[in-house]
């Protein structure tokens, strides 16, 4: 089944950057025979190969689908701009890395939504595959377009383009959808969608109509077909030890951002930071047992030859058996030159002790996320971290020989004043001061502190989903202030582009009217918007203007009574809980993390008979 454009690839690949991105053939990639029965599923990642191949969810679902007899899952990524122009010039359609077939011929294309600013790439990828972008323009021969991932919790800006939205974790629901498809593939697409609609966790945007008031707020969400669910409950895997995890993963040649074995130690987060969407939508916390993780590690090391294992989760130092697991992994693999790494650290001395154990020889750097500059604001966002903890932790780190510290902050958080911005500078100076006070002979000669600020973007299904987002002017003013405040040459300051954050904010809380804006921006050439050099703010503003919409309307504060575009989705945490948390933020009331007492977020009512692990232990 060789595509007729394959020979042409040899004419263009020598002309593009990193041609290895476009050829597949990696160790552990799956080649399968295709029969009449085979359901062909293209797993589409709307960014470049190196980004997509780092993503754990992609690895899990790729191998899960390929272990089913009658499903063949292949990968497709967004070609970088140089490759895209070669493909367009030579009439080469978007193809998968496995069979090099164009995805036009597939039964399904499933895009993963990790980041709002990759949406234009989805449109561009459909166009490169010569597939009509609007669902209404597609016919029976075109693939069914699916989306899933964190941004699917509010996928309304994509409502006009996609056929199926999957809410929550994909392992179970994806197989259920493909099973229904297999049993009904002779039916018309719309009838297949009606069958799939009954599966829990599935949202079919075309079965709904949204009516807007004059002021742009939603008047009503209407169902267009009979028996269409009025609420979509998210899916999640209950038992992580029984849930599928691949025993081998693809080994990319072109180096991905994360090039190592990734062990997923748990899902969900016990913390409840009020700005964090992942912390809300991935509830409840579900840990894997150390035994299962050890088994996963062994299989993956054997099948890949990687020499690094990373322990991944939303907050790995909260894993209840971390010490145990790390000790085991180090004992077992140290002699084999396999190292262990943690992606980010909570601020406490336990973490430093652990990091010391892990980074015995090379002390590459430590990253902390205080998120806000003052205690008052950290209490507002429920970041359970105090200044003493941070300073004690960095002192320990300096004593142990670390010299490179990264600190992450957000600007524009609810209730923030210039005092809080000043607090970022003051806190950073105190960290530097701790370095000078370090007497240890181990003290690193090269001291470097990097502070990064990103603009706070309110996200759906967080206690801050009703908050306003700082205007670009206001963000820029704060960034400017901080720039002038940082005087020491030992401190470097990085900040994120306020214009990009504003667009991200519009799409994060966007509605269906943004489908048109997205299409218009794509038509103007917008793509890879998250890549600094590709981002074209002026074109985006034109696109909004053409559609008579304004980013400001999406970034302003919302009332608790209004209908939100994502209200149809039920993520497990209740709206009452989110409102309660919002109000506690204003009074700077800390909500303890789940292990110290249940905050009644709603997840136990959401799923029958579910008991949070941490509650049951006490």
């Amino acid at each position: 089944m060789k595509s007729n454009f394959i020979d042409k690839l040899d004419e263009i690949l020598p002309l593009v950057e990193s041609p290895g991105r476009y050829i597949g053939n990696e160790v552990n990639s799956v080649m399968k025979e295709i029969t009449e029965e085979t359901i062909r599923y293209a797993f589409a990642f709307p960014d470049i190969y190196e980004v997509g191949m780092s993503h754990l969810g992609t690895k899990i679902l790729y191998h899960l689908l390929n272990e089913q007899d009658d499903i063949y899952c292949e990968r497709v990524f967004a070609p970088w701009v140089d490759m895209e122009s070669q493909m367009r010039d030579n009439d080469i359609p978007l193809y998968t890395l496995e069979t090099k077939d164009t995805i036009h011929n597939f039964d399904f294309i499933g895009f993963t939504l990790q980041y709002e600013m990759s949406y234009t790439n989805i449109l561009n990828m459909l166009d490169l595959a010569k597939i009509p972008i609007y669902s209404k323009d597609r016919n029976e021969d075109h693939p069914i377009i699916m989306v899933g991932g964190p941004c699917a919790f509010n996928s309304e800006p994509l409502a006009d383009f996609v056929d199926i939205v999957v809410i929550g974790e994909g392992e179970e629901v994806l197989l259920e959808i493909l099973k229904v498809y297999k049993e009904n593939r002779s039916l018309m697409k719309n009838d297949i969608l009606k069958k799939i609609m009954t599966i829990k966790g599935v949202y079919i945007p075309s079965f709904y109509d949204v009516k807007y008031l004059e002021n742009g707020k939603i008047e009503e969400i209407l169902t267009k077909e009979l028996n269409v669910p009025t609420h979509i409950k998210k899916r999640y895997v209950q038992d992580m030890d029984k849930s599928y995890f691949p025993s081998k993963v693809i080994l990319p040649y072109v180096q991905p951002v994360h090039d190592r074995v990734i062990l997923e130690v748990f899902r969900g987060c016990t913390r409840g930071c009020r700005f964090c969407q992942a912390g809300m939508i991935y509830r409840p916390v579900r840990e894997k047992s150390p035994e299962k993780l050890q088994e996963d590690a062994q299989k993956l090391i054997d099948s890949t030859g990687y020499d690094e294992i990373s322990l991944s989760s939303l907050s790995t130092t909260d894993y209840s058996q971390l010490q145990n697991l790390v000790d085991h992994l180090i004992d077992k693999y140290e002699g084999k030159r396999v190292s262990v790494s943690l992606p980010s650290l909570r601020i406490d001395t336990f973490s430093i002790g652990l990091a010391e154990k892990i980074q015995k020889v090379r002390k590459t750097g430590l990253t902390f996320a205080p998120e806000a500059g003052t205690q008052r604001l950290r209490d507002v966002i429920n970041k359970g971290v105090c200044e003493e903890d941070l300073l004690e932790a960095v002192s320990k780190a300096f004593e142990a020989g670390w010299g490179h510290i990264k600190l992450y902050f957000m600007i524009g958080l609810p209730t923030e004043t210039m005092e809080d911005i000043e607090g970022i500078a003051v806190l950073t100076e105190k960290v530097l001061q701790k370095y000078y006070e370090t007497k240890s002979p181990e003290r690193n000669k090269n001291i470097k502190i990097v502070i990064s600020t990103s603009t706070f973007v309110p996200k759906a299904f967080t206690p801050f989903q009703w908050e306003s987002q700082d205007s670009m002017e206001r963000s820029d003013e704060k960034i400017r202030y901080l720039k002038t405040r940082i005087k020491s040459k030992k401190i470097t300051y990085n900040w994120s582009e306020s214009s990009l954050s504003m667009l991200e904010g519009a799409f994060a809380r966007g509605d269906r009217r943004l489908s048109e804006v997205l299409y218009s921006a794509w038509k103007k050439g917008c793509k890879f918007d998250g890549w600094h050099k590709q981002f074209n703010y002026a074109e985006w503003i034109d696109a909004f203007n053409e559609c008579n919409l304004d980013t400001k309307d999406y970034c302003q504060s919302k009332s608790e009574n209004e209908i939100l575009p994502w209200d149809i989705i039920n993520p497990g945490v209740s709206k009452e809980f989110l409102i309660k948390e919002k109000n506690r933020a204003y009074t700077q009331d800390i909500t303890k993390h789940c292990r110290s007492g249940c905050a009644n977020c709603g997840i136990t009512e959401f799923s029958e008979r579910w008991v949070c692990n941490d509650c049951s232990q006490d």
Partner: protein
Amino acid sequence: MTVARIKYGKGNELKYISHLDFMRAIHRMLNRAGMEVAHSQGFNPHPKVSFAMAMPVGMTSEGDYLDVEFNNSLPAQVIKRELVKHSPPGLDIIDVKVYEQPVKSISAQISQGIFNVEIALDGNVTINQIDDIIQGILDQEHIELPRKNKKGKIVLKDIRPHIKKLHVAEIKQNILKLDMVLSIGSNENLNPQMLIDYITSQNKGIKAIPFAKIHRIDMIVSENKTPMDI
């Protein structure tokens, strides 16, 4: 200490993989095969694997070499069997020879590469025209071509001394097949693409695109001018 000299080939599947990425793939293959590769000392130990020559992106081969130092002693056939089992698609493990004592660095041993090249022609080029171009190259004592040095400055490079052999193997169905032997190695080196670019510049009928297929047959050892013994 054991050094294994491994002769391997790189197929089409690997031709767009850069040398750096390929090296990483080799390290991981050795790990998967459970080989106890010796590591260098120091803060950042790296596996003792040395390649005869980095291969430019776009080429295939059936005669490349690398040396691996092992902590333990293993028979050549065991090494070969395990590597064949764990090699990535497109990597052909051809042969393995084991040395029980230190050997001279493999990259210092090689001096020439034997290449097969295929270039597309349009229907208008005659065999005589091709012969004239090839003979013209061989008749010259110097062929100085501009190229960028490491600093990005344009300098002249005389490619003629590095062309050891060059002749037409076959012209068939508008494909010109050339055999060539060129200097390769750390001292003197000529990338076959540079010679091909020169040949295509001589006659519009010899096409620069689609790109020439370049295949390395083997490497020649400087001492005795014979292919590497393995």
